[in-house]
């Protein structure tokens, strides 16, 4: 049984900008929760807080009821960035990085990396320089590099934002496979309504740092209670 993640009253303030404003949200273990919102709504900031890359200005993050500081969050979660970042090494070395820093034995690393690359369809490219791959292939490497670690929480920041349809479908299929295994809690940030509908067990609408609506996909899209969420879904939201 995978763990239960709770975000309680998290604020994130940069100077005079409040990027997150009293965000409270429950993430069910083994499910896909989606943070839906326009650009600049605070999705990435929340993911970075959950990844332990930034300490919130205020509020708590609890995992299985235990308060988690950034350094502990980094041990149980992995973030796949919107802009793919590759180490200047081979595909194999990129995927193996997290396992190596954990001191896992070489044979075990080889087995896990091989499985991970197979699941994203990149086995034949393992010796290629990761930075020489196409955008879609790099995103698949990034995904393999994250889930090979079998994290408790997998954070995906707009994983298909810059990809063509074929690559986006491949990435979504990998996410669906992972959800079917219920091996970890997946938190997906996206502004793509259709993707949220296809992949989510639960959707939160984040708007200028505040969560306006939380519901299952059915209710979220058919009976949103918040007016701004309703406008967002209907494409009527204006800046």
């Amino acid at each position, binding site marked *: 049984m995978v763990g239960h993640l709770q975000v309680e009253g998290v604020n994130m303030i940069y100077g005079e900008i409040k990027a997150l404003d009293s965000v409270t949200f429950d993430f069910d273990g083994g499910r896909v929760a989606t943070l839906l919102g326009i650009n600049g709504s605070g999705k990435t900031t929340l993911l*970075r807080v959950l*990844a*332990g*890359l930034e300490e919130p200005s205020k509020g708590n993050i609890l995992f299985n009821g235990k308060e988690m500081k950034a350094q502990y969050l*980094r*041990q149980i*979660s*992995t*973030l796949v*960035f919107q*802009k793919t*970042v590759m*180490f*200047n090494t081979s595909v194999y070395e990129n995927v193996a*990085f*997290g396992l190596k*820093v*954990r001191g896992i034995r070489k044979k075990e690393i080889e087995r896990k990396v091989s499985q991970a690359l197979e699941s994203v369809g990149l086995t034949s490219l393992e010796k290629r320089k990761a930075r020489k791959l196409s955008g879609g292939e790099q995103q698949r490497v990034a995904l393999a*590099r*994250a889930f090979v*670690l079998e994290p408790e929480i997998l954070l995906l920041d707009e994983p298909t934002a810059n990809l063509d349809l074929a690559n986006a479908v491949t990435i979504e299929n990998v996410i669906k496979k992972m959800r079917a295994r219920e091996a970890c809690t997946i938190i997906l940030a996206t502004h793509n309504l259709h993707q949220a509908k296809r992949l989510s067990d639960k959707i939160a609408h984040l708007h200028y740092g505040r969560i306006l609506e939380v519901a299952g996909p059915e209710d979220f899209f058919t009976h949103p209670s918040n007016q701004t969420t309703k406008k967002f879904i209907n494409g009527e939201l204006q800046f």
Partner: protein
Amino acid sequence: MFETFVEAFRQALILILTGDPEVFSVTTRSIYVSGLATLFSCIWGLPVAITLGLSSFPGKRLVRGFFNAMLGIPTVALGLILFLLLSKSGPLGIFRLLYTPLAISIGQSILITPILISFTSSSVESTDVELRNLARTLGASNLQTNFVVLREALWGVVLAVVASFNRAFAELGVAMMLGGNIRYVTRVLTTSISLETARGEIAFSIALAIILMAIVFSLSLFLSFIRRS
């Protein structure tokens, strides 16, 4: 004038190709002295540069500003300060370093340390910030994350070291003031070129200048080639 230059150039090539012992001696001493200077500056400069590149602390801008300002220090002024320190009556006179190859190496290392620190720290700082975050989110410790950044900045660091060596190799003021240009002891390429030109030995000067430039250029070209391949 042109014919004189061509003749001098021909004589210079003969000196190089026949392995003239004096040319060989001056060249090897230059490489040794400047190589040692580069090694010294790496020993104390690289840790400072890496700390500047990887961490933030109060006064960091001031430290960076100091090293950037030191980039333009006149070699003769530095030579004079070190000369006064190392001379018999100076505070470091007890070590009897003046007019030794080691004195030149120390002087050159001080001269090139700001170059090494500025270039290396800039190279480390300019690595993608998200690369550090990526390493951290994949579970790397601070030390492992720093190693990732350094590996990424490796070529920048290598180029900084080579640029520092080239600067030391091509400088005149420190070598002249601290070495004294003593034949077979402290005479290096630059001091020798200066002396031979003043004496009218143009062919010899050209030979040394060709070697000086050949070493500097071939080192840079070799690095570019390695990097591309």
